[in-house]
């Protein structure tokens, strides 16, 4: 069985960990700086006052003038989420996190350990802790498990049997599907409001009207694929932090601090000479709040200049002066046998390599094998008369 554990409004809950009193008041997660002014998850008190997640900020404040806006705290979210994942891993579950607040895992390996599926799910809920109000759903398919978790009450585990999957999904709302808001409106305009109604439509008709996104939703409405869960590789615990005596907003200073943090990170013996695959840079901001960005490298590296080039531009996105800067190695790669170059290739060298590559293709396949597309009559009603392949033998 695939289980999905859900903690609704995780970002708000994590941000409120340092201000527990606010959780009982009408509060909402503030919009992300520079994005559309829509409030994030809201507390139960705010919901009772008529504020809904995704509401416009002005409308939310007009509906509930006492509404407290909680500043986003991505570093706290990351920290708390990592804690949740570690507790699940300690209980024996190989987790595959989807986003903060949503994680999937297979129960097959631990069912015998805990004495059955229900017992394993209860163990997962207990390991996360009641303070987070987690809920869990289990099914043969991932989407059905997520749907079950989203209708479960806090602390409840819902198991959907194979035979009942379609019947279980049918009355659920379309909002469970990963669709753009305008798509929901379009589907509602066509009288489709429930997953069952979408699943009952013929696939080609849905594909023709809504494209690949629609087809994927149609498949999900019928239970989705039985894709297996891949447990994550445990995150590396390599962090370097630098606290400033006073808040710093100057990008040059921050870049220098980043360079020094990278040096310290690369010098850590725990790295065992492994190159870095994924890095994160985070900051504690003046006046509270935090900021965090991650960078995944196409080729894992331990070169300081490449790491700086990947993380440096992200510092320009800092919304406020910084009191502490942190660099974290999120994922390390295995050793790779890359050929080192003494001299970095430049424009002309790269051009020469391309020319040489094309020459080798011509030599291997024959003259006329390398062509350019030349438009000759783009207006033509006959499709094949619009452009020609012209050999490029020079």
């Amino acid at each position, binding site marked *: 069985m695939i289980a999905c554990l859900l903690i609704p409004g995780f970002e708000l809950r994590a941000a409120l960990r340092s201000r527990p009193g606010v959780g009982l008041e009408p509060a909402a997660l503030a919009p992300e700086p520079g994005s559309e002014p829509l409030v994030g998850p809201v507390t139960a008190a705010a919901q009772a006052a008529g504020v809904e997640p995704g509401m416009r900020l002005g409308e939310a404040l007009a509906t509930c003038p006492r509404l407290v806006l909680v500043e986003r705290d991505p570093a706290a979210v990351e920290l708390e989420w990592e804690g949740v994942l570690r507790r699940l891993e300690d209980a024996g579950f190989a987790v595959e996190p989807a986003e903060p607040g949503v994680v999937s895992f297979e129960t097959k390996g631990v069912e015998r350990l805990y004495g059955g599926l229900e017992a394993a799910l209860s163990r997962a809920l207990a390991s996360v802790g009641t303070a987070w109000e987690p809920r869990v759903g289990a099914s043969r398919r991932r989407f059905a498990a997520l749907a079950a978790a989203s209708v479960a009450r806090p602390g409840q585990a819902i198991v959907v049997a194979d035979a009942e999957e379609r019947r279980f999904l049918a009355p659920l709302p379309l909002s469970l599907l990963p669709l753009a808001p305008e798509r929901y409106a379009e589907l509602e305009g066509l009288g489709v409001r429930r997953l069952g109604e979408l699943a009952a439509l013929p696939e*080609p008709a849905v594909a023709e009207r809504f494209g690949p996104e629609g087809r994927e939703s149609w498949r999900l409405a019928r239970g989705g694929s039985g894709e297996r869960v891949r447990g994550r590789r445990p995150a590396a615990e390599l962090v370097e932090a630098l606290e400033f005596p006073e808040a710093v907003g100057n990008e040059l200073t921050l870049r220098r601090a980043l360079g020094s943090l990278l040096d310290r990170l690369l010098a850590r013996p725990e790295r065992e000479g492994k190159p870095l695959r994924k890095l994160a840079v985070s900051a504690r901001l003046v006046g509270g709040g935090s900021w965090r960005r991650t960078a995944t490298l196409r080729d894992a590296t331990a070169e300081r200049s490449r790491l700086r080039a990947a993380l440096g531009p992200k510092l320009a996105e800092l919304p406020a002066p910084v009191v502490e800067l942190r660099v974290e190695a999120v994922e390390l790669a295995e050793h790779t046998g890359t050929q080192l170059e003494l001299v970095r290739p430049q424009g002309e060298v790269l051009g020469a390599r391309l020319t040489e590559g094309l020459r080798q293709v011509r030599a291997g396949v*024959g003259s006329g094998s*390398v*062509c350019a597309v030349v438009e000759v009559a783009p207006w033509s*009603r006959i499709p094949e008369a*619009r*452009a020609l*392949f*012209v050999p490029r033998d020079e």
Partner: protein
Amino acid sequence: MVAHSRGAGALRPSGRVNAPRPALVEAGACGAPVRVNRQAVAFLREEWRVVDRWWTDEPVDRRYFDLVLESGQNVCVYRDEEAGCWFSQRA
């Protein structure tokens, strides 16, 4: 651009881009395709006719059909009215 190297047939030293390729089509009574390359047709999205170059030795008379197959794949096929054959082509 490098021509595709899979098979000698795919290698075209020079030629036309988007050239038509023969297609296996079963047509219904009205002439519209009901099966394309052994897949049933779910929808006929659009149909149009191209008649051109009638003044030359190579006249063009084609009836195009933009279709959705049961697998969800979109295809465009045409019947060459001169030769009486079916081809697939991106329109």
